[in-house]
């Protein structure tokens, strides 16, 4: 394996880990505030559909019933993705915060709702088996060449790393990576973040201090909606799929959930876990099986590895993953 191949695999890992990272951070806000979210997958999928559909509609000529826009369609798509994902997040919030229903069941329902309705509406609008029309140009997010990437290309080692790995991604990739320090700062350096973590650990204490547990949790669930929307928009507007395809989230929401546990609900570790799982996927995509000399690792094992690692972490054999203390428990104010 030469240096260029390594750069290519890492580059692909960065692309593949972007939706994981965004969804993982979404789950982090929600679960840190005490609301379990296994609906990441559904919100991401619905976001991907909304982004694909809106971007296609915005770019469609006026004669064909579209908006006939020539630029900014992708951003319209992002807006739609966030809006739809927020609606699902609000349903989850209403069920789990206001009605004190079962958060896990709510998440399951949201996943199914997204899986079914995206195909249903997609077929109704575009009549091509649930897909949105192929997107091109400003309907998608193209690669961004960072300054001096061309000039520095020939510098040994660092040149290819800068040009091939760091530069040349689309805007959502950089947004995702920037969201990590931002999340860390919000959670650990702001009053909002302190309160958010507190409602996830001991909502009674927060309530006693005169802060609304309900508002704080809704805020967290909304942020999760925004981030899942971005993750979805990335899938349909920022990858080679160039549009929405039925079931395109393909379990990424669950890998993100796995990454969240693997990262023990810490923002910096979430970055590491998402990159690791993205790397596993990148290796799995490139090599059908890996011959270690002694035995051959089948590609299915690589695909299952994120889940296996998460179970191992959950089992507490390699460091214990302890979820926020009040996670999954509806808060009942004493009367």
């Amino acid at each position, binding site marked *: 394996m030469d240096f260029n191949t390594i750069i290519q695999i890492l580059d692909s890992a960065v692309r593949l880990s972007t939706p994981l990272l965004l969804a993982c951070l979404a789950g982090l806000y929600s679960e840190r505030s005490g609301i379990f979210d296994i609906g990441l997958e559904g919100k991401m999928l619905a976001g991907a559909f909304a982004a694909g559909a809106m971007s296609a509609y915005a770019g469609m000529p006026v004669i064909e019933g579209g908006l006939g826009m020539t630029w900014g369609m992708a951003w319209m798509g992002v807006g739609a993705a966030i809006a739809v994902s927020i609606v699902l997040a609000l349903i989850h919030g209403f069920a789990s915060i206001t009605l004190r229903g*079962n958060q*896990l069941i709510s998440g399951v329902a949201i996943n199914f709702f997204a899986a079914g309705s995206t*195909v249903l*509406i997609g077929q109704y609008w575009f009549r091509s088996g649930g897909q949105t029309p192929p997107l091109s140009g400003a309907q998608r997010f193209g690669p961004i060449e960072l300054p001096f990437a061309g000039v520095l290309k020939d510098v040994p080692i660092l040149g290819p790393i800068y040009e091939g790995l760091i530069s040349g991604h689309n805007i959502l990739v950089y947004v995702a990576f920037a969201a990590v320090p931002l999340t860390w700062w919000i959670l650990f350096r702001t009053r909002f973040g302190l309160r958010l973590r507190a409602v996830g650990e001991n909502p009674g204490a927060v309530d006693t201090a005169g802060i609304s547990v309900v508002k704080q949790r809704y805020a967290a669930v909304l942020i999760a909606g925004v981030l899942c929307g971005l993750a979805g928009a990335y899938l349909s507007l920022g990858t080679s799929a160039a549009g929405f395809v039925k079931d395109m989230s393909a379990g990424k929401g669950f890998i993100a959930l796995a990454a969240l546990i693997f990262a023990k609900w810490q923002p910096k570790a979430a970055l590491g876990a998402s990159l690791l799982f993205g790397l596993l996927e990148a290796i799995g995509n490139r090599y059908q099986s890996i011959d270690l000399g002694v035995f051959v690792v089948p590609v*299915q094992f690589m695909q*299952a590895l994120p889940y296996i690692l998460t*179970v191992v972490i959950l089992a*507490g054999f390699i460091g214990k993953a302890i979820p926020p203390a009040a996670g999954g428990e509806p808060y009942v104010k004493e009367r």
Partner: protein
Amino acid sequence: MNKGLPKWADIVLIPLLSLTLAFLVSGLVVMFIGKDPIEAVKVMVSGALGKFGIGYTLYYTTNFIFTGLAVAIAFHARMFNIGGEGQAGIGGVGVAVVLLAVDWPHWTVAIVAASIGAMVFGAAWAAIPAYLQAKRGSHIVITTIMFNWIGSALIVYLLVGPLQAPGMVPETLGFSAGSSIPTLNDIFPAFDKHAPANISLFLALFAAFGVWVLIWKTRLGYEIRAFGHSEKAAIYAGIKPVKIIMVAMLVSGALAGMMAVNTVQGEAERLILDTVQGAGFVGIAVALMGRSHPVGVVLAAFLFGILYQGGGELSFAMGIPREMIVVIQALVIMFVGSLENMVRIPVERLFVRFRKGAA
């Protein structure tokens, strides 16, 4: 919890109201995509209950009884087994291994052997999450989700590797003729000849009866319910949490695995990819709707059988994609499950007011 609610309101009225809401919203979805919901209901019901359709409806019903019971029994111990999908899939591997290993002389022996294979493999797939929950406190919902994905990767590996029949198709060899179980058409000629419903429907009904006996008529069932009501009180009464968690989850996994007798032995007659097709998840909706009671589960499973078969008819007759069923399923889980208090709280208030008026 159900302060002042009579039992019938709790187990019949509230689920029915929630279900009605779910169907109303489903109707709105149908209207949104420009179709007539009344027409859709007619197509579904006539498609699912006609001479041709009923054989399919009962085939789906069989699956959903097994997976619904699986989720229900875990609910009794206050555990959410979301891993029915994986357990049923691995149960299929168990069926295939048993039926491929021996050339079974007669289906009566083969179905017993296949059932044991299905239950052992299904239970084994539930065993690790159960053990981790019982001993290490790892959240069973997350571990069973992870095991669904690990299971599907394992099945793909087996079907393109060790268990693959010669050729390129990811499937095993066909089972021998001796392991072919009778379809309902073989027993009652009134059923359509091609319909896949088979004798395992009776196994499912028997399983429902068995679960009823276990939960309400045995000491173990009492312990499971006690544990589900209050873990602390159960421990104080000398009930061992590790035992209850393990037993409830193993039975749950075994029931989910049993589904494979219907699909793998009864229908495909070889192991193919994706035999479960979401039935593990339908089990969640079925258990919620059936209030985790075997009678409720059987009724809810039949309803979902109608939805699944009728949903197929929808795409033929009205051009509504099959995914409509997934949307209905989601809305049922939502309204009967997570949004239940939206119905329960007003109903409770109504009953309280009514009582005050009467007194």
